[in-house]
């Protein structure tokens, strides 16, 4: 052991973060101990409070410390649209585009039968409850364009259609500003089969 036990523990603890290996963990630990003691203390406090208090929004299941998250509590949004995504990060990604004004539902995963993730793990009973209490005119399925994401979208479409709600899937295609030559074959094939009229 090169460092004293407490420093070692701190380095080990920092390694739980994504993208942080032994070397960066060591840099972070020394930085906090040498220069940023007060901010480090602040970080520790906020980390503790956040972990204790942040739960899932009761309506859309995204991360939030209030029972209803900011987006769900905002009554000025478009009540007729509901967008279903896989993770809270997807909500942020869509919000940053500024082109969507409806509400969200976060699955916190996707159907992956081979990993043992079935419909129960995705909070679908909550989704069905939402659809009954606040029925939207259209549900947008924005799960990832992977095999599991597609399977999830198909499954959701089947159960949402039974409730006579319009269901749509986000489009797949060539990225803006991209060049066809460098787009992978599968995306290009999809873009061609699902082309739209102009």
């Amino acid at each position, binding site marked *: 052991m090169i460092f004293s036990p407490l420093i070692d523990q701190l380095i080990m603890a920092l390694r739980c973060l*994504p*993208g942080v290996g032994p070397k960066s963990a060591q840099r972070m630990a020394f930085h906090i101990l040498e220069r940023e003691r007060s901010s480090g203390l602040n970080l520790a406090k906020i980390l503790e409070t956040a972990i204790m208090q942040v739960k899932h929004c009761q309506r859309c299941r995204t991360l939030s410390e209030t029972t209803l998250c900011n987006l769900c509590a905002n009554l000025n949004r478009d009540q007729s649209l509901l967008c279903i995504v896989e993770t809270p990060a997807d909500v942020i990604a869509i919000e940053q585009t500024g082109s969507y004004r409806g509400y969200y539902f976060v699955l916190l995963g996707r*159907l992956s*039968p*081979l*990993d*043992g993730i*079935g*419909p*129960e793990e995705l909070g*679908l*009973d909550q989704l*069905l409850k939402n659809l009954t209490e606040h029925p939207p005119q259209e549900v947008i399925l924005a799960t990832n364009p*992977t*095999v599991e994401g*597609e*399977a999830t979208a*198909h*499954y959701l479409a*089947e*159960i949402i259609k039974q409730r006579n709600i319009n269901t749509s899937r986000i489009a797949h295609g060539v990225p803006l500003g991209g060049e066809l030559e460098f787009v*992978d*074959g*599968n*995306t290009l*094939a*999809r873009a061609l*089969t699902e082309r739209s009229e102009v």
Partner: protein
Amino acid sequence: MHQTILLQPSYILHTRPYRDTSLLLEIFSRDHGRINAVARSARGPKSRFKGMLQQFVPLVLSWQGRTELMNLTVAESYGISHYLTGEALLCGIYLNELLMRLLHRHDAHPGLFAAYQQALIGLQQQQQQITLRLFEKRLLIELGYALQLDKDASTGMDIMLEQYYYFDPIQGLISCANHASKKNIFRGESLLALHYEELTDREHLRDAKRLLRLAVMSLLDNKPLKSRELFLYQLFPLKKQE
């Protein structure tokens, strides 16, 4: 032993995120069977594998390594990709689960690889039932558990159209007098239809499904298939399945 495999025709059966940006792959290759490999930084923003490492896409892959876990070095798409949607997609997941559970690592089955490719084409053409049955039959043959569908296992006599037969996963088909609606008794006509792969009649197709399920499930030690559960869920959403 260090192994380098170059440009091997393969399909990806399943992927799992690994570390920060890598991907763990279950690969079904033509000449090397089922392989476990890791695609380093495949999920990163500058990945050279971007959008390529997907199920149901014909690929040529190169990998190297000396342990169980190989290192994926090259991936190129090869031929036309099988674009499965809706129910066909769930059927494709079912095929992948069968292969993952029944194939041993590094056991080559070129015949099965061809059958898998054929099955994906069948699924794409929306002929789910026939496609799945023929693939299951082929799978049993390749694994050495071929069903003897034209001979009575106890007497060695030919299967008769009008006769009823009892299916035992170990012995095979044995003629029986009682045709009360038991789940492991089959009519000779249906057995021969499956034998000659002429599954046009709905009744024959239903019997083939029943028979092949018994045979496949006995290979799986009767442990349920996750992808089948998803099908049942779809029929009865949110009811706990037994």
